[in-house]
């Protein structure tokens, strides 16, 4: 039994937002009489943490505590339109819509605060802890809660905002392909070490190191969650997963998890990742999308590592043990010929 090791890597870029644009998301924000804010969206949280990220963005723009933000999602009766949660678009599209809505709501909030403090709204600033004061004069201050009370019960005003983010659609020239496809590009480079058993054809990913560049991170822990989860999914795609193991034949056709193979915890190597931040011009606080690109580096890096380990040329996925053994047989046949 021989086990051989190899390394491989891959460099990838990934567009943020739907290809060619034209994929709007809108946001509504209003203040409650108690001074917290409700951000209403039709966007859908798939577990990536959309509600968290949008609350952070809203808090940042409004200048109020993160804890005072409620994010409501996924209701067509209450939420203004969102194209959907895909295409690495929600942090960027929904995030930008929330920034716009929050700017409008903040303006209304500062107008009421200005009346209470007998100051011009331009002279006011928020401290992020729930207070508004005159710039440079911390004691001339009013709480966000007091502003809410005054707005609702004193002045009869709404403190609310609307946001709509749209990257205008850019048609693709059918002849040349000329177009403006994306809002920005994120980047990644993944380095992998594998060990291949030349008797069984089994591949083990020993180590995976990645560097990502995703603009300004809104929430680094959640970015890391995407990267680690995607690293694992990349191993699945590279080595195991297919609904048609005999592709292009339609049989066999796995219908359960015993036959649709995925890596388990045992197959998950140590994953190291580093994140660079080059803020995107168009992103909310410079953010780019990261949700989809996270399998794209690991897959080719793994196959490159297998080719490096065995000195073969495999060009398909998944690289199952049969694929490995076939490549080794071909190599042997060529050496003998």
């Amino acid at each position, binding site marked *: 039994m021989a086990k051989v090791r190899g390394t491989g890597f891959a*460099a990838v*870029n990934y*567009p943020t937002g739907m*290809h*060619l644009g*034209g994929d709007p998301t809108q946001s509504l924000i209003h203040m409650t009489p108690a001074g917290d804010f409700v951000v209403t969206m*039709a966007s*859908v949280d*798939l*577990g990536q943490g959309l509600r*968290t990220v949008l*609350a*952070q963005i809203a*808090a*940042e723009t409004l200048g109020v505590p*993160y804890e005072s933000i409620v994010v409501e999602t996924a*209701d*067509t009766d209450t*939420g203004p339109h969102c*194209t*959907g*949660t*895909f*295409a690495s678009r929600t942090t960027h599209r929904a995030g930008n819509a929330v920034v716009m809505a929050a700017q409008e709501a903040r303006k209304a909030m500062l107008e009421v605060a200005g009346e209470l403090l007998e100051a011009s709204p331009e002279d006011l600033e928020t401290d992020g802890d729930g207070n508004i004061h005159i710039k440079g004069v911390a004691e001339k201050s009013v709480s966000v809660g007091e502003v809410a009370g005054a707005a609702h019960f004193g002045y009869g005003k709404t403190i609310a905002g609307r946001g709509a983010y749209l990257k205008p659609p850019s048609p*693709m020239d*059918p*002849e040349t*392909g*000329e*177009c*403006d*496809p994306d809002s*920005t*590009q994120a*980047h990644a480079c993944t*380095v992998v070490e594998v060990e291949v058993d030349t008797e069984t054809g089994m591949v083990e990913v020993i180590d995976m190191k990645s*560097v990502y*560049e995703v603009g300004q991170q809104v929430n*680094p822990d959640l970015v890391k969650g995407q990267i680690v989860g995607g690293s694992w999914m990349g191993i699945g*795609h590279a080595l195991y997963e297919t*609904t*048609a193991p005999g*592709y*292009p034949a*339609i049989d066999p056709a796995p*219908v359960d998890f015993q036959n649709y193979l995925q890596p388990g915890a045992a197959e998950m190597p140590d994953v190291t990742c580093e994140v660079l931040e080059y*803020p995107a*011009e168009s992103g*909310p*606080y410079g953010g780019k999308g990261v949700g*989809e*690109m996270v*399998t*794209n580096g690991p*897959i*080719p890096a793994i196959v490159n590592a297998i080719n490096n380990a065995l000195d073969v*040329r495999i*060009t398909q*996925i*998944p690289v199952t043990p049969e694929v490995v053994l076939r490549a080794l047989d071909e190599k042997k046949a060529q050496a003998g010929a």
Partner: protein
Amino acid sequence: MSMKELGVVGRNVGQRDLESHARGQTTYYEDVHYPRMLHLKMHRSAEPHARIVSVDTSAAEASPGVVCVLTHEDLPGKKVWNGLAAVGVGPEDEPILAFDKVRWRGEPIVAVLGESAEAARAGAAKVEVDYDPLPGVFDVEEAISGSLPALTAHWPNNHYIYPDDHGAAQIRFGDVEQGFAEADHIVEDSYQTSPIEQAPMETNGCIAKPGGDGRITVHTNTQAVHFARDNTAAILGIAPGKLRFLGGTVGGGFGGKVDVAVEPISVLAAMRTGRPVKFKYTREEEMQVSSTRSAWRLNIKDGVMDDGRIVARKITSYQDSGAYLRFSSYGSMKHAGHMPGPYTIPNVWVDARVVFTNRPPSSAMRGFGVMAASFAIELQMDKVAKTIGMDPWQLRLLNAYRNGDMRAHRKVNEDAAMVETIQAAAQLAGHELPAEYQAMTSWDRKAS
């Protein structure tokens, strides 16, 4: 570039749903319980390609616990559709319930409503369909070779037709043939990916609940509530305002929950019966019926100079769309627009074709059109490096796109940081780069 000082953006504030997840209190679409709820199961095609001779639902209707069955004749609005019809993509080619033909194994034919999931399943198994089998089309290059029958009248050569009668989403930048003529080396290869299931732990599903006021609330795990609502209304020919689509947290998406496959028929059943209707894909349906990541085949030909500069890249791609269009024409445009990857190459030629076969329709998954592109390009880069005897890190850094470069789709590059990302990865992996490669930046090509 420096941003203004940030407060809570950039901070690790946790993830809002974690505690409810850990307590098992997060609400997913199927965590609402309604009395008198009906269950919907689908009778599906057993053949990948066949003419439907007859459909007999009598035994299903007589099956214990079956409340009603729905065939294409019961559809009040559209019989065929495409999810992007509203934005001008077409033609609408996919039957909501199959009528004259089936074009993939698993295609829905008859919906059966039962008092329990088991009653619906037993009823669905009793639907009798008589088929006249037709030859199957499975290989993408064979499919468009002219030797096999056309799957539908829409696509005479089994591939999608883009505006101006183009058979592919194309990129034409510079002159690849001239690039090949000037190149010191030609490097070619073919690449193949497989259909992959998004495999969210929660399968596709919805519960349609009549409100008694003429409106129907649909609890759904779609990734796009307005899109699903508006398409459902369009399919059924009803006012969108009659529908409220309500999501919660979705049990994983990865692109696998944008088909709008369960909602229209569930709403129709709820309208018919006045009762709540649940349609949840089994794991088997999720794997073999819900659309997968498309399989792609790519042929790449590069012209390369001795010093490592790639001067021409020609790519022909085949996206296996399965039997119907769904979002494939979008996927191939995104694929073509992504080429030639994060590299600046002066001559680029791309033909990205959408090919129809007798497979389950494919669709989006995490990195639609781009994953296959990145896979093939990064394997190709290693082959180029090996062919010319160059360090693969240096090859990529030398060719990596810079800010200000014109990309193949004729947009000036911005926000690029590929060079810095590769350099940092080399350092993380302990791969030493020569000084001139360490000095490269995305803002300056001079260093190279």
